[in-house]
């Protein structure tokens, strides 16, 4: 079944287009040869590939804000206290733990205890270290997943996997899968947005690529300097009225061109895309204009402090985007691997915890007070955690075998701890949660079944979770 069978007159075509997506219950199509129709297993409106689509099941969250602490924050010093580290301090790792291949060849080094003070917080009594005092006040909103594990040793592969499911680049990002599955929930902004605060993310745009999915679903990076999107505003020598008039001519030319090609939905989609682009020119600058927020709100995110202003600004922007129907915001803290504390973890993490603590707490509080937390899934984590043994005496190496991610908001069981690492926090041992499980859970909360959301590529019905993935049930409310 295909569009051409359904749409064989211009009149009917326009009637259906006008009736909105709900009326277009036929097979999806992007490519004119019908191949994409068979590759995709969601019904995509060829006129508006980004039109909103119904979820597989009722969604618990409408949007995701993923706070990505790039470089690998230490679970052992933040959310996963291990008294055994004190006992084993200065000794080599007991032989029973084997000798993993690490990024820096440090597995023979001695165990390093944490210097943190730990306390239980809130009604739930969740352990959080003194590096995160503001977030600790929201302990009862958090669902802490202490048993994460991943496949990569290096940053670039691990960041790539946390975004796309695979340590090798080339697959669609989880945000692209979400957009593919659900379409957009707004009609003047991109649906999948990336925010960075420091250097380029390791691996760059591969991490928000649409991979083998149509490019329509790729993420868009919003910049903080200049216009948020490249080419968002007309060149300086073109005024708005002038551009509108050009667009009117363009529409007239394109309609004229399509007179004897009315069956061609691709031409119509192209016409629509110019109108969407035109609306975006106004909507995106408005969305990123933080000056429209009250001073109280701005301060809540730490915009009054030079140290926290940048990442805080991104957190506030993430909220504004979510309010405007953006489905997926990938919000990096320390982009370009700032959390990578191979040495001097004290100095490194003290700084980056301070940078992220108030803004994240502010985001949780703000979402809560606006009634947005119920419909927004907040995810916190890095691409991996850090090792119990030292590197260079005062740092920690990469640890993909066991680390912590937490979630809050839409559909998450607040005030809970799931899973556990071993005695020294090296490996996840209880309720182990692979990256694919995290992705399956996020898709589930967004109303999508990770196993059913597929796209035929090179002979496989590819899915976000590759071969694996199970929804982490204990995390769900």
């Amino acid at each position, binding site marked *: 079944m295909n569009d051409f069978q359904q749409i064989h007159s211009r009149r009917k075509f326009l009637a259906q287009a006008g009736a909105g997506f709900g009326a277009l219950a036929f097979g999806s199509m992007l490519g004119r*040869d019908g191949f994409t129709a068979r590759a995709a297993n969601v019904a995509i409106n060829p006129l508006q590939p980004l039109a909103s689509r119904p979820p597989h099941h009722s969604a618990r969250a409408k949007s995701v804000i993923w706070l990505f602490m790039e470089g690998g924050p230490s679970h052992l010093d933040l959310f996963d206290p291990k008294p055994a580290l004190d006992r084993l301090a200065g000794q080599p790792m007991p032989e029973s733990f084997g000798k993993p291949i690490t990024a820096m060849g440090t597995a023979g080094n001695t165990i390093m205890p944490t210097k943190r003070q730990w306390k239980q917080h809130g009604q739930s009594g969740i352990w959080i270290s003194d590096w995160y005092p503001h977030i600790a006040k929201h302990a009862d909103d958090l669902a802490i997943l202490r048993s994460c594990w991943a496949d990569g040793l290096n940053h670039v592969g691990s960041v790539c996997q946390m975004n796309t499911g695979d340590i090798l680049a080339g697959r669609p990002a989880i945000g692209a899968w979400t957009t593919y599955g659900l379409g957009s929930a707004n009609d003047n902004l991109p649906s999948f947005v990336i925010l960075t605060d420091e250097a380029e993310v390791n691996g760059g745009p591969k991490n928000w690529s649409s991979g083998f999915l149509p*490019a*329509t679903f790729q993420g868009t990076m919003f910049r903080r300097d200049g216009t948020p999107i490249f080419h968002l505003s007309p060149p300086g*020598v073109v005024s708005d009225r*002038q551009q509108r*008039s050009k667009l009117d001519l363009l529409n007239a030319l394109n309609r004229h061109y399509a007179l004897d090609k009315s069956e061609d939905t691709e031409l119509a989609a192209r016409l629509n895309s110019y109108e969407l*682009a035109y609306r975006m020119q106004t909507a995106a600058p408005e969305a990123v204009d933080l000056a429209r927020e009250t001073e109280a709100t701005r301060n809540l995110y730490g915009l009054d402090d030079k140290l926290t202003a940048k990442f805080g600004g991104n957190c506030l922007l993430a909220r504004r985007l979510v309010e405007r129907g953006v489905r997926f915001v990938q919000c990096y803290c320390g982009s370009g691997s700032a959390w990578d504390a191979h040495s001097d973890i004290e100095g490194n993490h003290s700084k980056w915890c301070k940078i992220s603590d108030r803004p994240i707490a502010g985001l949780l509080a703000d979402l809560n007070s606006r009634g947005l937390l119920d419909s927004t899934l907040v995810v916190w984590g890095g691409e991996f955690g850090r090792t119990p043994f030292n590197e260079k005496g005062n740092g920690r190496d990469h640890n993909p075998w066991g680390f912590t991610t937490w979630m809050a908001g839409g559909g998450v069981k607040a005030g809970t701890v799931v899973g556990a690492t071993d005695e020294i926090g090296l490996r996840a041992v209880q309720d182990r949660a692979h990256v694919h499980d995290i992705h399956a859970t996020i898709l589930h909360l967004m109303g999508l079944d990770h196993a059913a959301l597929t796209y*035929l590529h090179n002979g496989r019905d590819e899915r976000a979770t590759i071969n694996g993935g199970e929804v982490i049930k204990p995390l769900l409310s």
Partner: protein
Amino acid sequence: MGCFANAGRLLALIGVVGLVAARAEPNPPEFSDRERAHWAFQTVRQPSVPSMRDKWIRNPVDSFILAAQKAQHISPNPPTDKVTLVRRATLDLTGLPPTPGEVDAFLADRQPKAFDRVVDRLLSSPQYGERWARHWLDLARYAESEGFKADETRPNAWRYRDYVIKAFNDDKPYDRFVQEQIAGDELWPENPEARIATAFNRHYPDESNARNLMQRRQEILNDITDTVGGVFSGLTYACARCHDHKFDPIRQVDYYRLQAFFANTAADDNIPLTPSAALTEHQLRLAGWEVKTRDLRAEMEEIEAPKRNDIIKDYAEKYPEEIQTALNKPASARTAFEAQMVAKAKLYLDPSSHQYIASTKAVAAALKGDTRKHWDELNKQLQTYAPLHPGNLPLGTGVVDLGTEAPKTFLLGRGNWDSRQQEVAPGLLSILDPKPATITMPANVRSTGRRSALAMLLTDPENPLTARVMVNRIWHHHFGRGIVATPSDFGFKGERPTHPALLDWLAGEFVRSGWSIKAMHRLIMTSSTYEQVATHFETAARIDPENKLLWHFPRQRLEGEVIRDSALAVAGRLNVQMSGPSIFPELPAGMESRGGWPVNHDSLDRDRRSIYVFVRRNTRYPMFDTFDMPDTHESCARRNVTTSPLQALTLLNSAQMLDLAQSFAGRVFREAGSDRNRQIIEAYRIAFARSPSKSETAMLNDFFQRQDKILRERAEAGERLAQPSAVTAPVDPVHAAVLVDLCHTLMNSNEFVYRN
């Protein structure tokens, strides 16, 4: 297939040193009747051309197409008008719009076979190779950088791009083209071109920061296996990496049988390209420079040595033990597998590698204080001798085997690099031939001969896949859809051929023509099938909505590269200079590119064709990225065609497009002067190769009036207006700016970005 005539040719080519006796696998896989009967594995038949008499038929392609249509009670469309046809063919073969002169010449040629002459002219233009090489580069996952974190430049990767362009322009026989890419180093070791061709298997993404080289090697081998299996055989081998293929008769062992051909393969980034006479001259000059600078360099090396040792030690110590052990052994004591590990590590530890981690630059950066000052002084002195230095020799990049003995290949449990199971010998798909391949060690190069054997197996005329897959790719690019719509998946999950007999007939013609790709273009393009109008008819659409039977020509959106090239062409700015290192056109202001993006200063360089734009894996040129340029991390046989607001923003708002619109307007102005009706006619002629209709002229005149008013107000307010470029005659700045707006709009229009 079974017996392979090419085995004899291979022996003749490389001479016999030793034959590895074929031994049967212990348990050859079993296949069901259904699997054995799958169409793609059957020998290519020699179907007779349907005997039909119809004046629509121009060549046998039409007979097959018409027969299939008749069976469904569909009639083909009439031929399109000559202007549309020449635009279609020119974009198709060269990726550029026809010039007004070319259109006029075709319109004026009323002799029979006028279009055949157009096709011949296009096929012999150098722009043909540039256009069709791009299709091949998609398959080869071609990029000029490593990918992963640092995304470092691969300095000589572009030579492969030039090789492919030349191969298409020379109409290199496809069998030879395949042989060179798989095993050029073994088959023609003295021929630099053949060795550069082996870069096909060097385009894998790679991680310079990897520690576990055992895993990294396996990932590279997987990349090569997936790519070779998909590109030359049209099979989704990758699905059989972890288990037997779920749909196709590709057993897991077959994955590793194909992989075993590459077991001893490693990167070769130092392929010498200098003729021996020039080499002698170079060595003489170098020796002169070395003598004069010996003391100075010795002094510098003394300063550098401790830092250099630190850098190397720190790097090497991060490797797992087994790799450190291999590094510390004398070369003769290393196993073949260890040699593989060392070759990989040497990309970073060998001073002759462009990725050497302790390069002079890296070491100098680590020097501090007075030491650095002293070093800088010495370096300054050294630089005074630079004019005596002959410069670096040009080098090519590709692959070679590391000697005559290959590490063993194992079937890997779940595809994990460290789950070795049974040993596997090189071989084709078991369903085609379960025996191990016969390997002949080449006489004049230290290599296993494995890849030569594979090259010959793939290009054996009896191979049921190779010719079918390639003619289908050619068809796919002409019509936007292959006879098999999944050009790299001829398996059960792929699409069935819409015209199986035609596919076989074409495959047969392909081999009979001496594997000539240009002969295939001629055959396909001089058919009535190709010349049809693109118009849609409801009666036919009801029966065949997807146009599988080709009752009309399928309209196609141009690729990002072609849109850019077309814009440069209509702007009169296209620099057709061919070959050489890649160019770096402007990025949007503020865009980062790790690995670097040194924008060319000279606009002449920036205005070269898109195939010469540098391909940085992690930061593809944004305009191409937005228009579905493939990812370059894996082979792409069929680009997506998507429509997005970011495409609209790029064409509408980028400084580059406005700049080109100004040049386009300047060209119109120079040709047509300030008469607006003449401007409209000229702009249409350049952009669309046709005259505007009356209603279009009326539409544009409306626009002129409306835009005059808007821009007049802006001019009176003292605002700057975009003016046509390179116009010397006096112009009304408002009228001129309106013309720029018109030209800009035409370049955004559907007619401009579609091949009709």
